[in-house]
């Protein structure tokens, strides 16, 4: 069994037939932006790309500005979509209608499984970089597959048993790409095509998936699931990533879901690199082969499946052997709902809006540890623009999760004589502005 769609099994032969049929529709170009919302279709698109020697593009967001950059990066890119109306400004390839999918005939029984070279470039994932252009990171097929072999082991998935993997995260995000698409495809487990959103949907899709079953999700979805008061169907394993969970929330989830909860640590550049069972230890255990190296104030990851030495965006205490502790994010970094950016990048985008004289983003109030979402705010000097106009311009440039709340128009920013902007001064200004605003 390779996948489940609405609870119905999809055989590997059907998958291969779908991949073969989609291949020619992707054209002669070398790159595919795969935005399929249905996880099964996404997987078919990914595999058809691999077979055809095409590279999948996985940007972290699809704002018009990012699509424009992608066009420059890969002028031959097409966009594979399963939606009727797409606002992505690339040549569109619609995922063919399921109703017209050829049922696998006798011929498919002898259909051979395509072999992909380990060195083949499978995907480019993108991080937002510090100025305008998204930064590409190459993912080769062999390293992705190697990482998934380790992930299967570290998640304790028994070889030879097919787990049904349900996920609330999109297949295009690095965590979802690995845990909800590559992991099932490369380790004999089955992906579930749906992406349940509301707690009631999560429970329904889980209940429809055969056991053993796994839920791949985030602290935000888990918190909503707990707070909904719904009965969580028994689940053999729950996997969480994008932000650390508190031990208390982890215990509550294990109890209510009659399950084990494992957290994955990783990044877009490195993929998954560590796992912990939060109810047993706050220490993370690295995947074999990966090394963490403190360099001055920074921590770098390299080795194993990590393609290139990568600076991690968290404050990390390296313990003995393969263990480490997380102590929060690096000051400039912003991580909202698994989307990463930096104050530097956001400030650059804000200040490139015509009419903005000066502007700066700041972190919202510190995380309360209850998996609530903390937003960023911004103070902006822009005589002649109103907040709505600035928000509309930002919406074209940055992912909506980073849109500032609040967006405060101020006469000037509290810069020092050298032009620096102390975060404390900025936050005091923001607090004073909010207090005096008529909204409060």
């Amino acid at each position: 069994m390779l996948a489940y769609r609405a609870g119905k099994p999809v055989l590997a032969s059907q998958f291969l037939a779908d991949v073969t049929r989609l291949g020619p529709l992707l054209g002669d170009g070398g790159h595919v932006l795969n935005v399929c919302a249905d996880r099964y279709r996404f997987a078919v698109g990914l595999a058809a790309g691999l077979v055809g020697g095409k590279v999948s593009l996985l940007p972290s967001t699809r704002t018009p500005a990012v699509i424009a950059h992608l066009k420059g990066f890969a002028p031959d890119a097409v966009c594979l979509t399963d939606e009727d109306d797409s606002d992505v400004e690339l040549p569109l390839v619609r995922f063919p209608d399921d109703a017209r999918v050829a049922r696998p005939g006798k011929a498919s029984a002898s259909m051979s499984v395509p072999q992909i070279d380990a060195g083949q470039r499978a995907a480019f994932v993108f991080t937002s970089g510090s100025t305008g252009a998204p930064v590409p990171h190459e993912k080769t097929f062999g390293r992705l597959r190697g990482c998934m072999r380790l992930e299967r082991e570290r998640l304790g998935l028994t070889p030879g048993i097919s787990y049904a993997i349900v996920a609330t995260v999109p297949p295009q995000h690095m965590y979802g790409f690995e845990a909800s698409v590559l992991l099932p495809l490369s380790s004999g487990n089955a992906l579930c095509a749906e992406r349940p959103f509301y707690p009631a949907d999560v429970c329904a899709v889980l209940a429809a998936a055969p056991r053993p079953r796994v839920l791949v999700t985030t602290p935000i979805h888990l918190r909503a699931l707990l707070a909904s008061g719904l009965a969580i169907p028994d689940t053999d394993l729950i996997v969480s990533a994008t932000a650390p969970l508190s031990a208390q929330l982890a215990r509550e989830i294990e109890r209510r879901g009659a399950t084990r909860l494992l957290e994955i640590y990783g990044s877009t550049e490195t993929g998954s690199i560590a796992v912990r069972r939060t109810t047993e230890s706050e220490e993370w255990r690295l995947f074999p082969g990966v090394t963490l190296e403190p360099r001055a104030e920074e921590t770098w990851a390299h080795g194993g499946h990590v393609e290139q030495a990568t600076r991690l965006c968290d404050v990390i205490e390296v313990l003995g052997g393969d263990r480490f502790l997380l102590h929060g994010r690096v000051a400039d970094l912003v991580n909202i709902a698994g989307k990463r950016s930096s104050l530097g990048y956001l400030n650059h985008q804000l200040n490139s809006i015509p009419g903005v004289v000066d502007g700066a983003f700041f972190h919202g109030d510190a995380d309360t540890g209850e998996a609530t979402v903390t937003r960023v705010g911004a103070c902006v000097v822009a005589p002649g623009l109103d907040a709505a106009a600035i928000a509309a311009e930002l919406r074209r440039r940055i992912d909506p999760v980073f849109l500032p709340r609040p967006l405060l128009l101020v006469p000037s920013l509290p810069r020092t004589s050298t032009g620096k902007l102390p975060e404390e001064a900025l936050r005091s200004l923001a607090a004073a502005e909010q207090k005096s605003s008529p909204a409060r």
Partner: protein
Amino acid sequence: MTDNVSPLRLPAGSAGIAALSRELAGLIVTALNLEVPAADIGPDQPLYGEGLGLDSIDILEIALVVSKQYGVQLRADSEDNERIFASLRHLAEYVNAHRTK
């Protein structure tokens, strides 16, 4: 859609819907820590995207509030789903039709 007639249910289009809209606006502003005063959210202003500027994280938060306050469990596969968050009025009508408390 089951027609679960509830004693809590108001006739559609009544003044009660307007009051429920205002109540929901207050709950949304509090739950999401919005800068906008609840009274400024128009009954027909879009909640998503360009309108009030909410995103899917907010929608999940609203779903929680709505389930706690009115006993309504939102479902994405409901055919009304796109309409529900089209505006405060639509949300109020949906809650009114499905509330269990």
